């Protein structure tokens, strides 16, 4: 049986069963040291823990520079983490008794934001798609066959588009090729780093629908990174909100959008342009730029832009507290014992 027409329920690679998260991320950390800054570093991802459940789409949102893309690359070890661990389907990655990074990359793939620079300009797109299977040990002819098959699956006629070069394709077509390339090695998890941000709205919708259909067809798990709240709401099962390298809120998509707990999430939601003139902004929108991730604010990192900031927020860092239904958020106002004047009022 070809791995491409495998039935969704019978993945022989599933080791832990349905309850075992596909990916467990624990205290992942990556700081980029700055040259000549006396050991100071950009704290791109600063202690992030979450699970990715089997078969779900986990949306990751946040402003530019909050560490989303670094997180994506850390999940595939394209950037080495400074600390923390990844557990893929029960096996720790890059650990003595776990699986190797190469083994992880056989089961997880990535789609990049820039559809242009993520394809080799001197390679026909079918060769770009065939490269993954070829590298992972398929003979050339078989790799080409997989590439043809995958191009057809993403809605591109392999005879017509396969021999073309990236500059001969539109943005949407290139992103389809990128999806085909990511799926050609038959992964279980795909990390999508802003896959539709560079596309215009109509093409964006097509690619999102394609991603949904492919997820069903191949029983995939997505980590979907975006800065667009609407896109995340459309596609995700759960949403993770990041701010300056940390998780501020995580929960089921409906919960996050109907009952956002963290002031940052509220502000993000409020800053969406509304189509309804009767619906006015009720929350104060986030203004200004995020603080410099080299020297993030003490205590709660959001306090410099938060309307509810109090002296307490500068001295102690709020922990992620559970609010039931798998919804967690990190804010002093959610913890009655924190001493914040609004504590308990929000929950």
């Amino acid at each position, binding site marked *: 049986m070809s791995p491409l027409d495998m039935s969704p329920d019978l993945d022989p690679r599933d080791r832990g069963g349905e309850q075992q998260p596909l990916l467990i991320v624990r205290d992942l950390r990556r700081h980029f040291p700055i040259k000549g800054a006396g050991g100071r570093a950009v704290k791109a991802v600063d202690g992030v823990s979450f699970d990715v459940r089997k078969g779900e789409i986990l949306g990751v949102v946040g402003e530019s520079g909050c560490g989303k893309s670094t997180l994506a690359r850390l999940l595939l070890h394209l950037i080495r983490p400074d600390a923390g661990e990844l557990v893929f389907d029960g096996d720790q990655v890059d650990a003595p008794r776990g699986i190797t990074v190469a083994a992880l990359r056989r089961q997880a793939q990535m789609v990049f934001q820039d559809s242009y620079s993520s394809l080799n300009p*001197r390679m026909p797109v079918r060769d770009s798609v065939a490269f993954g299977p070829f*590298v992972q040990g398929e003979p050339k002819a078989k790799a080409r066959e997989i590439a043809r098959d995958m191009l057809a699956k993403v809605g591109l006629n392999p005879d017509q588009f396969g021999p073309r070069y990236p*500059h001969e394709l539109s943005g949407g077509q290139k992103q389809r090729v990128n999806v085909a390339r990511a799926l050609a*090695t038959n992964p279980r998890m795909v990390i999508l780093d802003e896959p539709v941000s560079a596309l215009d709205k109509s093409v964006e919708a097509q690619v999102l629908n394609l991603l949904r259909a492919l997820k069903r067809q191949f029983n995939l798990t997505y980590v979907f990174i975006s800065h667009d709240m609407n896109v995340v709401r459309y596609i995700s099962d759960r949403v993770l909100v990041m701010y300056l390298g940390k998780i501020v809120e995580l929960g089921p998509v409906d919960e996050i959008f109907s009952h956002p707990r963290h002031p940052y999430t509220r502000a993000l939601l409020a800053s969406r342009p509304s189509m309804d003139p009767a619906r006015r902004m009720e929350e104060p929108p986030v203004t200004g730029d995020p603080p410099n991730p080299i020297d993030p604010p003490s205590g709660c990192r959001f306090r410099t832009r938060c309307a509810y900031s109090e002296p307490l927020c500068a001295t102690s860092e709020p922990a992620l507290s559970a609010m039931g239904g798998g919804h967690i958020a990190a804010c002093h106002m959610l913890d009655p014992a924190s001493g914040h004047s609004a504590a308990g009022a929000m929950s």
Partner: protein
Amino acid sequence: MSQTVVFPGSAVSPHEDQAAPETRIRSYWQSVGYRLRHDKATVFFGTMVLLIVLSAVLAPWLAPFDPYKESIIGRLKPMGWRGHLLGTDELGRDMLSRLLYGGRVSLLMGIVPVIFATCAGGALGVIAGFMGGKVNTGIMRTMDVFYAFPSVLLAVAISGAMGGGMSNGMLALTLVFIPPMCRVAETATTQVRALDFIEAARATGAGTMTIVRHHVLGNVLGPVFIYASSLVSVSILLASGLSFLGLGVRPPTADWGLMLSTLRQSIYVVPVVCALPGVAIFITSICFNLVSDGLRQAMDVRM
């Protein structure tokens, strides 16, 4: 997002992209070839280069006289004297034959160092560019040391230190060309390395060598090739200069630079004949230069 349509059960969504017009698909090199063929100047000078190379290769059959046959009475004769179409030099040797044979040495000195420098400098540049960090610093700063000297001075110094002769001259020229070639390759590689498709290739689990072979070399080859073709004329000039200074080919070997050097005392006797080697150098290097320019234009496809 409310207006989006979901296509259930199928990954293939019908959309207007499918209706893209049927066009003939050319590979990169095919389109470069097409552009070259339709560039009249490049075709003309390319033909010239071909003729020059052919005349050098076929020198033994084309030369009307033995280039080393001296004649006491037939020294420094003007063009056309007793069948010597381009006259004779200070030892009575036939100029046309010597120019044909001299082309062999000059072209060899022009092309061989460039090939060696392209291989060595290109490899160093790709390594420096792809590895980055300390490796890059080590290689590129070493190259900068060579950069500090003017290329002519460096060539003279190296071949002066190692002694004259053709192979030493070639070695000197190779060493002179490695640093700039290395820099061109390093720049191109660094640019390519930062692109996402390299990261995507790493995400499939490909090793460094596989990535370099499949994804880097193809993108670095263009700029390196263009630069190498422009170096050929420089190399011919430098080689002639070395021979002129007595650091390159030894007499009595026919070589344009050397001929220019030995004939310069006779410039007032037969000025036209004495200028001939210089004319040959000039035409050859200009032809190579213009072909290189044409190549640069043809290969500068914004992709």
